[in-house]
């Protein structure tokens, strides 16, 4: 069954009718972990706000658990969980008070759905009398997730939960999401970090309010049309410059310690010779494993 169905959704802002969400359509299966991957300003937050009924669309339609986001907004409000991008808990209330408050607002109790949050809550329980404002980033995030889960939502919307969070906390957070998925909760998550895409069941790459591609991360990577090479040299900056000026290069860019490049014609030996001829040392050329980031760059190119 489809938990979320989005059809030609449009959102514009202001007098200039700046388009934030441009004719977006996708659907999410029940129990799926779906990622909206794209940079800031791509329209991720607007989509989430429309789906959680806090924003009215300017065109198109969408439903969550079969309820229309405009007509049945009250039904949706009582059944979804939402974690906005900014840390949105009461900083001057303790962990326990925050959780209790949100449980009551949603007409439930902590005890009733404790099993859902138990895994996460035990990690922050030792600090339950500490005020939320005094928690570390990772702990705040865990608390926010508990609060979004406490009323046993059918669908969970997480808007950039890992932005500004260090890589270790990010990993932990994704592990929590994987475990939640086992509870058959549909999860929609947005992120600007391309490397998190592979942790989702399916993803939509989004930029400028438009969806560039939707599929499983593996299929998206497999669909990469060109042969991608990873190239390394001791002089990185110079390498990038030389690649840029190479006549056969379609696209080239830095990628970690390597440069990634696609060519019209891939003769690695000729390429190595070309690079050495331009004074580069320690040249290494090999086939690269395509990542979501490579695909995104390709789609933007």
């Amino acid at each position, binding site marked *: 069954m489809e938990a979320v169905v989005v059809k030609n959704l449009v959102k514009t802002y202001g007098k200039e009718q700046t388009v934030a969400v441009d004719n977006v359509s996708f659907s999410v299966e029940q129990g799926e972990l779906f990622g909206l991957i794209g*940079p800031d300003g791509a329209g991720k937050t607007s989509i989430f706000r429309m789906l959680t009924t806090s924003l009215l669309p300017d065109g198109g339609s969408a439903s969550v658990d079969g309820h229309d986001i405009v007509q049945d907004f009250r039904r949706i409000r009582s059944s979804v969980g939402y974690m906005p991008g900014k840390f949105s808990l009461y900083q001057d209330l303790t962990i326990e008070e925050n959780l209790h408050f949100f449980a009551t607002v949603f007409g439930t109790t902590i005890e009733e759905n404790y099993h859902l949050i138990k895994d996460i809550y035990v990690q922050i329980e030792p600090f339950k009398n500490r005020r939320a404002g005094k928690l*570390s*980033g*990772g702990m705040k995030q865990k608390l926010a997730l508990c609060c979004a889960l406490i009323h046993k939502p059918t669908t969970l919307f997480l808007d950039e939960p890992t932005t*500004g969070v*260090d*890589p*270790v906390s990010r990993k932990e957070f994704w592990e929590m999401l994987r475990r939640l998925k086992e509870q058959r909760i549909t999860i929609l998550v947005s992120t600007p970090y391309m490397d998190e895409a592979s942790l989702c069941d399916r993803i939509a790459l989004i930029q400028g309010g438009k969806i560039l591609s939707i599929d499983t991360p593996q299929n998206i990577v497999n669909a990469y049309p060109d042969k991608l090479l990873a190239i390394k040299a001791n002089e*990185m900056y110079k390498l990038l410059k030389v690649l840029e000026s190479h006549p056969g290069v379609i696209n080239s860019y830095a990628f970690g310690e390597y440069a990634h490049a696609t060519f019209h014609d891939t003769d690695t030996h000729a390429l190595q010779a070309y690079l050495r001829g331009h004074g580069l040392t320690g040249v290494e050329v090999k086939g690269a494993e395509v990542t979501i980031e490579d695909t995104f760059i390709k789609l*933007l190119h």
Partner: protein
Amino acid sequence: MQDDRVIVCEKLTKRFGDFIATNEITFDVHKGEIFGFLGANGAGKTTAMRMLCGLSSPSSGKATIAGYDVYTQTEQIKKNIGYMSQKFSLYENLTVRENIEFFGGIYGLSDEQIRTKTAQLLQRLGMQNEANKLVASLPLGWKQKLSFSVAVLHEPKIVFLDEPTGGVDPVTRRQFWDMIYEAADSGITVFVTTHYMDEAEYCHRISIMVDGKMEVLDTPTNLKNSFHARSMDEVFYQLARGAKRGD
């Protein structure tokens, strides 16, 4: 050998009461180097950076920035550094040109210098047509590039970048790094923090802070080798996993 060290830190420490935010960090950064300053949230990066920028006085230890002492010569330090953070860098309700003129003015450039620099900068960024638009109306990527350009407008010896590429799309991120490379090539030292581990690889050397201490400092390749890791991500994870502090 000529001493080309622009940042010299020796046992630099900052205490807030009992809490040691930055614990005896010792390192040097050379001219034209891209120095990655990594660490989990709350590891003490921000505090360390504030001391290096002359915004906060250390509790103990020594440090000189561009040859100036962090205790006594903070004014000279501020003249010789540029700063850009993800959170604040430009005035959203001023136009591109007004922002450039304002920051040029702050750093004491003459009207003549400001005029020529503005023209150069706009041309290099290809933003001539946007010069009179409000910064608020620009896409995030352009803002970041513009604020970096403004941060190096007065040709500082060192530029501090605090998570400069957060939330930016992959293509713009790379264009941004092109600008960093270019600046480093022209002799500006770049001191950068980031949460993107692939960006850490672009740095000449990386330090990783854990619980206020600088645990490691080396080139990305050496770090990966010594930690038997395939990526910087793994190195970071191995180090920061044991961290006790959050922010």
